[in-house]
């Protein structure tokens, strides 16, 4: 378990040292600095100082376990914010608190100037938070296009209508969106028949169909091959840039975190350990201790 984490952590470091390894960042093969500089410009374009999501002292416990303990963090408009931390750090619980699957015991969640603390999931979805779940959550027997169409219908509040033909509404828009995420050819297939990576893409496309300002990705590359991971994250980065999305994601794959995130928050045992740029996080001794220090204890114990 920790061996794998360490490996991933190191892989992340190597990636930064030799970025040419990743197919998605081939441009860096020629001039790393130049590529980084261009990204910085891009960052400035999208990134603003406006806070989109603010979490204030949120806590949630299950019995005696404080899964999320006094967590505060801010996500800026246009940011790509990663939450990392070992298993059981409270990342998924935090996500569930944000999207209404769970209600916090205390604290506040403010999104886009509105207090969404403890609101039910469908209300939060309407305010503009889209989510891709850790376990792929789509409509498996409906076609890819229907998946997107129905999201558009629900988002616009059309689902109260007991007349009209749902499958003819937003058909072209859904097709366009399917093409944007590279699934145009498969738009008529049942979503459940597609590959795992493509199903994740549908999930992201559903968030886009909802016009979400903030997209939460809970381990977007879990269960993907290295090739699929590169492809998926390239898609995520492209969509985020094109559509000015704000991303909040948690991820175990450090290469993904360091290639995509602009801000990283580290969680450990329900608390925020530290937050900063990827570079700061990598150099932080506390973070190294969380990921690597425990490993030594584990080895001693074994």
């Amino acid at each position, binding site marked *: 378990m920790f061996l794998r984490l360490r490996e991933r952590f190191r892989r992340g470091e190597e990636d930064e040292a030799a970025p040419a390894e990743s197919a998605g960042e081939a441009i860096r093969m020629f001039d790393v600095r130049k590529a980084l500089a261009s990204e910085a410009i891009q960052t400035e374009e999208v990134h603003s100082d406006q806070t989109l999501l603010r979490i204030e002292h949120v806590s949630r416990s299950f019995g005696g376990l404080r899964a999320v303990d006094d967590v505060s963090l801010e996500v800026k408009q246009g940011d790509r914010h990663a939450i990392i931390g070992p298993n059981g750090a409270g990342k998924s619980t935090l996500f569930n608190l944000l999207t209404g*699957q769970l209600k916090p015991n205390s604290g506040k969640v403010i999104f886009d100037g509105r207090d969404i603390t403890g609101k*039910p999931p469908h209300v939060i979805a309407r305010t503009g938070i889209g989510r891709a779940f850790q376990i792929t959550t*789509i*409509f*498996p027997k409906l076609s890819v296009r229907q998946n997107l169409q129905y999201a558009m219908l629900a988002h616009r509040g059309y689902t109260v209508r*007991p007349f009209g033909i749902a*499958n003819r509404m937003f058909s072209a828009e859904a097709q366009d969106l399917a093409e944007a995420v590279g699934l145009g050819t498969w738009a008529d297939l049942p979503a459940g028949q597609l590959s795992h990576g493509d199903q994740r893409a549908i999930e992201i496309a*559903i968030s886009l169909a909802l016009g979400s300002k903030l997209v939460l990705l809970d381990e977007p590359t879990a269960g993907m091959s290295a090739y699929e991971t590169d492809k998926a994250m390239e898609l995520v980065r492209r969509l985020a840039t094109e559509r000015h999305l704000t991303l909040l994601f948690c991820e175990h794959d450090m290469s993904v975190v360091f290639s995509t995130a602009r801000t990283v928050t580290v969680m450990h045992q329900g608390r925020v350990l530290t937050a900063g740029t990827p570079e700061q996080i990598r150099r932080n001794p506390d973070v190294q201790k969380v990921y690597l220090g425990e490993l030594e204890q584990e080895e001693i114990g074994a």
Partner: protein
Amino acid sequence: MLALFLFAALIPPLAGLYENLNPDASSRFQIFLGTTALVLALWAVSYNLMLGYTGMVSFAHAAYYGVGAYTVALIFKRYHLPILLGLAAAPFVAAAVGFVTGLVAQRAVRLYFSLLTLAISQLLFSLVYSSYDFTGGDNGIAITLPDQLTDYTTLYYFTAAIVGICLLLMFILVRSPFGAALLSIRENRQRAAAIGINVRLYELAVYTVAALFAGVAGGLFVMYQQQAYPEMLYWTANAQPVVVSLLGGTTTFLGPAIGAFIYVLLDLEAVPLSVRHHPRRHRAGRRPGRAWRNLGRAFGVPAPARALPSRRGG
């Protein structure tokens, strides 16, 4: 869909033709069976709004069917109002009861929802069964039809018209964006909520709509059976829409309607095959010969061939 309507419309003339060809047959009986199948079709299609389209397994659908039936019967018997007024009121009374009980059932999901509906159906049954002064208890309520509707063929077309309108309304409903919301709830509740659908509210809505159409079916049942009785609400009665829906297929809109016709035929032909229904079971013991012969008759095997499998020569 058109084919089924055409088939339904042709039942009485076909039955008449059959009677002319075969003096033993009764066209009235065939038409009666046709009416039964139509009412069952409406009941099962309304049940499938929940089972097939929303993924809810309710065990209380028979209760709303019964509520519809008792609405018609009570309005006629107790308040002496025209029977058609009762038929018009039946869906709304059933929907109102469905809405209130649905609020209770909605407090749980999946299996627990099913168990709550089971309790609700038994509650409604005992209410009808025990309030003897009002509902007549286990005697039920008998009604008499107005003169215009006493003819079997007229009643058949009357029923067919109402069933047709109801099926059309439900067909529009399942194709609409509302139906899309139902499908997405069936497919994945979590995702449905995450795209902004208030899952509980939509489930309550479809529960009420299903109860409404079950009320129509119950009202029509009273029309052609000319009685309402408490067993209609008993929880075992709910097996009918479930079986019929599954028989015809829950994934298509008309599946349950076709299932209803198959069910009525099977009910007629296959029930006598059961050992427990053998008229001479107690005197002669099990006689497989009779059962084989009936099975053969059901599938149209000629008489000499039917006699063969019998050990005692029939």
